[in-house]
């Protein structure tokens, strides 16, 4: 029996975009970027795809990628397929606003996961680069009654167990959990693989499964947020930087040390 792996992935605005392109629409309590800047798959979720593919490199496995949103850039969301994932499932509906909170998102994802059938392992990125909640995967685990392990940097499967090496402030720890289980991964896992030409060709031919809220039997009352954004604004910074400049760079270094001494900081 091949191992059934599900990866949760989110489409986010590119966190590397120039700050000048980033606009906070306070009146709409949302962020906008020019349509010329394409979104990306959340970075930690690419790590999750990589973790799933590494398992698939070593044993028979299928990798399904599941995402939810109001609208998708299909060529962006197909990247996991071109990296080597087998199936892409997109939950797409006007009701799936980005303002919908983590628990409503988790509800939709959980409903879709039940509809898709049994999975041995669910892998997700530790958090998304837009709201950094780190909440959806754990809410999914709770709803499905799965054990969860977070911030993995190495994920291995064998004998009905998932073994995860995870980063901790003190170093690392190795934990294991019985399958089915949910694991989140962090950047310490290492670079996600680049899509191969063959992978890109295969991904072009694949069409995603697309489900609406109605397909999942969900309506607006199910998706009512438990956390509401009442304001969104650009923070003000009051730091005034004093530039230390000597005759040359070595002199600047020397003056900096003297300045810190004068300010009684050292």
């Amino acid at each position, binding site marked *: 029996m091949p191992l059934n792996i599900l990866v949760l992935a989110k489409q986010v605005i590119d*966190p590397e975009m120039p700050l000048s392109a*980033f606009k*906070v629409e306070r009146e709409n309590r949302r*962020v906008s970027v020019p349509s010329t800047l394409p979104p990306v798959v959340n970075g930690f979720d690419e790590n999750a795809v990589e973790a799933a593919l590494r398992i698939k490199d070593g044993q028979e496995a299928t990798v399904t990628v599941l995402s939810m949103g109001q609208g998708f850039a299909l060529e962006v969301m197909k990247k996991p397929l071109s990296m080597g994932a087998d199936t892409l499932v997109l939950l797409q509906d006007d009701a799936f606003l980005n303002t919908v*909170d*983590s*628990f409503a998102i988790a509800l939709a994802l959980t409903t879709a996961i039940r509809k898709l059938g049994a999975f041995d392992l669910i892998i997700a990125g530790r958090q998304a*680069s*837009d*709201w*950094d*909640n780190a*909440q959806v995967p754990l*809410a999914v685990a*709770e*709803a499905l009654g799965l*054990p*969860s392990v977070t911030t993995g940097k190495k994920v291995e499967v064998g004998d009905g167990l998932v073994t995860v*090496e995870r*980063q*901790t*402030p*003190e*170093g*690392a*720890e*190795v*934990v*294991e*959990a019985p399958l089915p289980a949910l694991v989140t991964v*962090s*950047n*310490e896992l290492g670079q996600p693989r680049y899509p191969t030409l063959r992978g890109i060709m295969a991904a072009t031919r694949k069409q995603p499964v697309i489900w609406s809220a109605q397909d999942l039997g969900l309506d607006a009352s199910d998706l009512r*947020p*438990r*956390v*509401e*954004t*009442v*304001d*969104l*604004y650009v923070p003000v*910074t009051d*730091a005034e*930087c*004093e*530039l*230390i400049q000597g005759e040359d*760079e*070595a*002199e*600047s*270094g*020397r003056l*900096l*040390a*003297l300045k*810190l001494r004068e300010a009684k*900081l*050292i």
Partner: protein
Amino acid sequence: MDAVDSTGVLVLGELEDGALASTSKETLAAGRSLAGGLGQPLSLCIAGADTDAPAREAVAHGADRVYTVTNLLLAEYHPELHLEALAGVCHQTKPAIALMARTTAGRDLAPRLAARLGAGLAQDCLDMSIDPESGRMVARRPVYGGNAMAAVVCAGTPQMASIRPKAYEPLEPDPSRQGDVVPLEVALDPSMKRVRLVERIEEESEGVQLETAGIVVAGGRGLGSAAPFKELEETARLLGAGIGASRAAVDAGWVPASWQIGLTGKTISPNLYITVAISGASQHMAGCSGAKVIVAINKDAEANILKEARYGVVGDWQKVWPAFTETLRELLG
């Protein structure tokens, strides 16, 4: 949960080597101000094998009441048993607001607890207050890597928030403060453990601990390789400073992951934070917003770090740093 009879602010406390964790003391300070805004009591709960001493600490740091779940199964932190204990306490005590620090354990526990209680959870908060009109908690938190701030309100009960470490200062402890200690029973069973710790790999940390260091020196992508960190370490030793790095330097494999300062790394709050060749991406700044004075050495005059720094040198670190270190050595004798 039923909102009608929910009252008070509950801090979900953590233990560190048998004592109340410093982050729990910070959370008590946050809870104290919310409890004041509501005119309701502040409680803290702790789950552990021995809860007497930390309960006294909690009262000294501002708790009116301490709920304890004392059980040998809780001697070591275990995500599933502690989650069960905290959920039990919330069910029995019905707080209006439940707070937790966004520590390693808090990151694991708070979302699952909120999901289990059917509660809304505001994550990574820097500041919370009570809206005088609605009586609801308004939590402020950075989003989009700190490029925007959001104010959020939780529907339902309890209203939950996780607080970024160092966002609040603990209250001055008052050993004469009085408070009730209320033992609670939560049924726990070893069979609830599904996740099992196999091995703990502690990294040797000879230097100063980053989270509590008074001075921190850190390097970034612009250092170009692992070797320059030796120079930074030498200077750090001279200053008695902790040493850290940006995520880029960690991802490049130049330094261990435990050195990472930032949103997904460590949160520091030194009096002096000296950065070398760190551009100051918002990911990084999220981990050092508590630094009192930031110093930036960067060759790019447009680097974001110079917008956040108090003192800056625009130049090549390879020329600036040796002279800086040499002068420090003279000054510090």
